[in-house]
């Protein structure tokens, strides 16, 4: 009788062995995952809520020191900059002619090409300046004003290269055309007020 019980126990143990081994593996894996998660939490750098704000402040100062006063005012008041197309600038150098095409440069959004004369929206150019060099705590995106400055420098120095690298889409893929038209209206109003201010300043002298 005892021998039969022993034999049955051995058989039951042999049958249950794979299941027990599987459970033991799962338990070990869960334990190591928990440890890794705890270590990862400790590896996360201290979050400084003011860091991004300070970075953006520095970026704004750099942008301001590089662009034209009119462009800086545009960015400060409207949140975007208009950059005239390269061929337009060549034709307009030294003359007050309206550019055949221009770009609206938004922070961390596509560049929008349009016709200033008619307000016709032409296309969106999706372009990024990702810093993949590391050393930024996993961040790759520049502060908003640095992104605008990078686009401004690329467009004013080598428009063809940056446009070639961008992904071109019809307007409306990422930016709402209604919002763009509203921004063009805001820009026109802004320029009208600015011109009016300049006239009143000169007439009061």
């Amino acid at each position, binding site marked *: 009788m005892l021998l039969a019980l022993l034999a049955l126990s051995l058989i039951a143990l042999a049958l249950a062995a794979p299941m027990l081994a599987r459970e033991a593996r799962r338990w070990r894996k869960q334990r190591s995952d928990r440890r890794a998660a705890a270590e990862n939490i400790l590896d996360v750098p201290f979050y400084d809520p003011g860091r991004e704000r300070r970075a953006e402040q520095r970026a704004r100062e*750099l942008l301001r*020191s*590089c662009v034209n006063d009119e462009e800086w005012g545009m960015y400060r008041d409207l949140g975007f900059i208009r950059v005239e197309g390269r061929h337009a600038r060549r034709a307009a150098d030294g003359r007050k002619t309206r550019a055949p095409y221009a770009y609206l440069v938004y922070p961390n959004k596509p560049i929008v090409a349009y016709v200033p004369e008619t307000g016709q929206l032409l296309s969106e150019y999706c372009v990024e*300046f990702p810093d993949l*060099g590391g050393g930024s705590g996993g961040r790759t995106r520049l502060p908003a004003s640095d992104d605008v400055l990078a686009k401004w420098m*690329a467009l004013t120095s080598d428009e063809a*290269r940056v446009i070639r690298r961008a992904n071109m889409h019809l307007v409306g893929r990422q930016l709402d055309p209604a919002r763009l038209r509203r921004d063009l209206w805001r820009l026109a109003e802004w320029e009208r007020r600015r011109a009016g201010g300049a006239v009143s300043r000169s007439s009061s002298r």
Partner: protein
Amino acid sequence: MIRFLRMKPGHGELLLAEGDRQVREDEERLVEEFRRQLDEGMWAAVPTVNSGSGRREAQMIRDYGEIPAGAERVIFFPRASGG
């Protein structure tokens, strides 16, 4: 004196190097830093003023020798890619 600045996520611009291009030791350091930045995939630009229109614009710099004589700073920024 010229300063090399680099845009950096989470930082704003960083001062990489500065020096007098007329001083040999400084220039060697600047050349080395310029090459390192381009090797890391950066684009370099110098803010300038268009002699014709008087408007500010940028000049892309592909080689240290292209830096204009009177330039006060070179700004390095990540190269553009389709978003």
